[in-house]
């Protein structure tokens, strides 16, 4: 019975285990707070954080911060996906470009994306454009590299089958190469998303107005630890939702379709 609880694999048990884990975490937090090791303005109680959460929710600052952040993210990320996939498809197919540009991109990708911020500020000033540039650079290379490697790893038989049935040029890219590389592209989209998300938070904390990163920074300036924590939790939740629900389910769908996973 007890063994079953720890080892058995059912959806319900999995959820129950997780609920218990997070309740324990909550009580640990409460317990530490009640020990009064640190002053409450540095280590607020769960209830204080909850109150702050409700107040920033009610006066709409939370909502507008999320809105601004998501707008930047979707815009920057969207641009990087379109450009990244296009560049990746091309360098995946053209040997010379792959040996030169491909290697160059892999090199640049080691640069943490927030390092693009000083350059962006000099080019674009303290503007939306600078932030969006940083977001684009955050995910562009991941998407490009994943697309490139997806194209290179396409099984030759798909290309031969496509050519055999009369696909050439742009048709070949649209109807054979792109879909055949999709599982790898989705991996790149996921990685690109998480890099874009990190880049954006970094940039917003450093200089942006509005946005979640800014809200986080305001919390620090006001010495309002419960706001800092409330916003951090929001940032985590958004990250989890996107990672697991959106990209996780996309990946599962492709794995299944490509016959890599039993349904």
């Amino acid at each position, binding site marked *: 019975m007890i063994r079953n609880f720890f080892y058995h694999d059912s959806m319900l048990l999995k959820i129950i285990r997780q609920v218990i884990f997070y309740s324990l975490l909550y009580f640990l937090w409460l317990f530490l707070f009640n020990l009064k090791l640190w002053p409450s303005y540095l280590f607020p109680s769960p209830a204080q954080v909850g109150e702050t959460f409700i107040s920033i929710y009610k006066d709409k600052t939370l909502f507008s911060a999320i809105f601004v952040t998501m707008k930047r993210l979707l815009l920057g990320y969207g641009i990087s996906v379109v450009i990244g996939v296009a560049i990746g498809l091309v360098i995946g197919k053209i040997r010379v470009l792959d040996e030169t540009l491909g290697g160059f991109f892999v090199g640049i990708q080691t640069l943490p994306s927030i390092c693009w911020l000083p350059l962006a500020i000099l080019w674009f000033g303290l503007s939306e454009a600078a932030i969006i540039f940083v977001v684009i650079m955050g995910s562009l290379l991941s998407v490009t590299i994943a697309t490139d490697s997806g194209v290179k790893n396409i099984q030759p*038989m*798909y290309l*031969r*089958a496509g*050519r*055999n*049935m*009369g*696909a050439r040029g742009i*048709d070949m890219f649209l*109807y*054979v190469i792109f*879909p*055949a590389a*999709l599982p790898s592209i989705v991996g790149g989209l996921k990685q690109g998303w998480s890099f874009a998300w990190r880049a954006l938070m970094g940039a917003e904390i450093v200089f942006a107005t509005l946005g979640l990163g800014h809200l986080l920074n305001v919390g620090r300036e006001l010495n309002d630890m419960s706001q800092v924590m409330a916003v951090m939790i929001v940032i985590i939740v958004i990250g989890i939702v996107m990672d697991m629900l959106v990209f996780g389910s996309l990946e599962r769908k492709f794995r*299944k*379709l*490509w*016959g890599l996973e039993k349904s």
Partner: protein
Amino acid sequence: MRVTLKRVHKSFQQKGQRVQALRDINFSIEEGEFICVIGPSGCGKSSLISLIAGLEFPDSGEVYVDSKIVDGPSKDRLVVFQEAALFPWLTVQENVEFGLKLQKVSLAERNQRAFEALKMVHLTRFLNAYPHELSGGMRQRAAIARALVMDPKILLMDEPFAALDAQTRQLLQEELQTIWQKTKKTIFFVTHNVREATFLSDRVFEISARPGTIKKEYPVRIPRPRVEQDPQLLMLQTKIMGSLKDEIDKVAKEQLDLDYGLDKNIDQVPAERNLGSNI
């Protein structure tokens, strides 16, 4: 439509070395013929298919269709690949319609032609299934439908039934024969299987080990419908197998360890009898 190969040579670059796959291939296939090609693994059977399909080109020599030199793929010469090669991101119906869509055939006509092609291979119940949901046999059926739907003059089949179990294989052989009789297409069929080759074809080409050349050609003058146990068929099979065995041994010697032949001899002497015999 008549296919002619004249003095065709084909080699590939492999790890910096040139590997000659086919040497001096000459033959001609008449319209409506069923040709089977048989030979040891790696002798260039798939390469032969690619050459006729226009997916590869000879180093020297020419591949003609009627009197025209093959200069690329054409919807008149379609390949059913060794591994089905259905696109996993498309349903069965979308796979079958793929070539038609590229030709900008209207949706209604596409649907209708796909349905007819799938009917020929008895797969209409799986229109909306994805390839990973099909069994191996059903995948090959879909692959055949994908070629048939384009109404090619020549069907190039590369060991299409090799990965199937014996029963499914026989069923599909019989169905392929029916399709061939109904549609009068020229079929160029590569196989490892001597029984399959003699059962299906008008002529069997035997290809020798690398570099592949046409070693022999066997006419199969047995009226259809054929039965598996036809004594004439069995006799022919024995003849071909004898000749093929030499080639297969040649390949094995070349590809496996050098002591391959020796090992076999040692195995014939049981270990316990060998004890002390050399003292």
